[in-house]
């Protein structure tokens, strides 16, 4: 089986007092995420994207429908540990997910919980820190690191559990541009070299260009789903959903309106320049 995560008509509402209305945050989500893919989930605040993410490692369980992680039903309590060792989660605030006051101790936290033997933990800590490029900081105090470095430590802490999938729940939202780049390049490498499935929740459109597949959430439902070139070029539809297409696409779309013969699927500066040059040359 090569389905990493499968949601079947997933609905969810947060618990409320008796008699109060229970607004659904997720309203019937059907998704299949393949092993080894890099998926970006976009959406404005309140679109349900974070709630969806929290269902992927049983941090939340459905109030309706089903979530299967590598075949395990997340609603069954005895599956929780199996689900969580398969799907690691990195959160938004880097300060609030680091447990220990030495980097290597923090990375070891997950494997320690799983009861991994001591020598094996040491090997995993070393390899995980290498994988995120933080091996020189093994003995540092986490609170003295930059935001991007802290998030990389958090990622190392997750991959030390040797998961099949990493979910980044708005993990780049609090970082500056260079920190964001650090994190994105790290997960992209993990995806490419180790075949780890990556699910990135964000509202930064520029990050969608890294993905194989882009899913746009809106009011608890999947509003768009497809490869980046297909999704990011739908300027008007994105605007309706509270998002903005990348500037390169906006530029080409504006030029198209002025009668230029360009197509919109240019997500990089180079592609965009190619399009313009071609049109100018013609």
């Amino acid at each position, binding site marked *: 089986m090569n389905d990493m995560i499968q949601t079947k008509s997933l609905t969810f509402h947060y618990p409320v007092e008796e008699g109060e209305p229970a607004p659904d945050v997720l309203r019937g989500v059907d998704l299949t995420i393949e092993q080894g893919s890099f998926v970006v989930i976009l959406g404005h605040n309140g679109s349900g994207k974070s709630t969806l993410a929290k269902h992927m*490692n049983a*941090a939340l369980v459905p109030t309706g429908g089903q979530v299967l992680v590598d075949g395990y039903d997340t609603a069954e309590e005895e599956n929780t*540990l199996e689900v*969580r*060792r398969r799907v*690691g*989660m990195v*959160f938004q*605030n880097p*300060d*609030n*997910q*680091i*447990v*220990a*006051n*030495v980097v*290597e*101790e923090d990375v*070891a*936290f*997950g*494997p*320690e*919980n*799983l*009861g*991994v*033997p*001591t020598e094996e*933990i*040491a090997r995993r*800590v070393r390899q995980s820190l290498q994988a995120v490029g933080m091996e020189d900081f093994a*003995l540092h*105090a*986490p*609170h003295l690191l930059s935001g991007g470095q802290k998030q990389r430590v958090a990622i190392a*802490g*997750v991959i030390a*559990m040797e998961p099949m999938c990493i979910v980044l729940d708005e993990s780049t939202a609090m970082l500056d541009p260079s920190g964001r780049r650090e994190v994105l390049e790290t997960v992209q490498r993990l995806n490419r070299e180790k075949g780890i499935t990556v699910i990135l929740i964000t509202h930064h459109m520029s990050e969608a260009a890294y993905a194989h597949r882009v899913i746009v959430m809106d009011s608890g439902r999947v509003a768009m789903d497809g490869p980046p070139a297909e999704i990011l070029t739908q300027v008007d539809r994105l605007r309706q959903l509270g998002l903005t297409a990348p500037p390169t696409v906006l530029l080409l779309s504006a030029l198209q309106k002025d009668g230029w013969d360009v197509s919109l699927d240019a997500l990089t500066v180079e592609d965009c320049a190619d399009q313009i040059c071609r049109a100018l040359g013609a």
Partner: protein
Amino acid sequence: MLKDITLGQYFPGNSVAHRLDPRTKLLMVVAYIVALFSAVWVVSYGLMILVLAGCIAVSRVPVKSLVRGLKPVLIILVFTGVINLFWTPGESLWHWWVFNLTREGIQRAIFMVLRITMLIMGTFLMTYTTSPIRLTDGLESLLGPLKKLHLPIHELSMMMSIALRFIPTLIEETDKIMSAQKARGADFESGSVLQRARAMIPLLVPLFISAFRRADELAVAMECRCYHGGKGRTKLHVLRYQGIDYAALFLSLVVVAAVFALRRFGL
């Protein structure tokens, strides 16, 4: 500002004192305190000073930072000294109003001040050479047998190490909220005691709310990393006594025995 405060400060290093097992150091501190409080006269105090000096030399911790550690307890030191100096019954040397300086008082004041100073320097020597996390590990391991009595030793030590981890974060946060409220004209420095207490509300409310939020998020993050209590947990660093630990523990016993012996002879 607040950032300059140091709590349980640790000086990274690689001396013999740093390499000792944290349990050894904890036990040594216990032995040291017992010996210190059993010392009665110049000879035993002299021995203890030698022991402390030896430990400081081995640890290569600068004496200056140990002395600096005494600053917060200076008032207690002075207070203890003065009380003992003037209010110890005995052969009076000088008398004025309620003050009565006695020969015994001088003796006692010197010993008491010495005792407190050495107590603090000794324990600080331990925290200076042991990272907080190893210290917690050591405590957890030493108190391990109490788990049989269903005491939550693992939970307590986990709480302690998380508290240590968040101290710098919360200090930074306090600094930030304080600046933000000062930017809105808050005044933390002047006014009566009552006014100052009231002025703390804009600082404390956000600080508590944020601490609760952090605790909440941390709990979720820990669960997502498969934390489910102390059961079946392994460790990256397992504590193991080395030869040097046995040697250090043996020496500690010798010192305690020596002080006890000296005490018998009133030395």
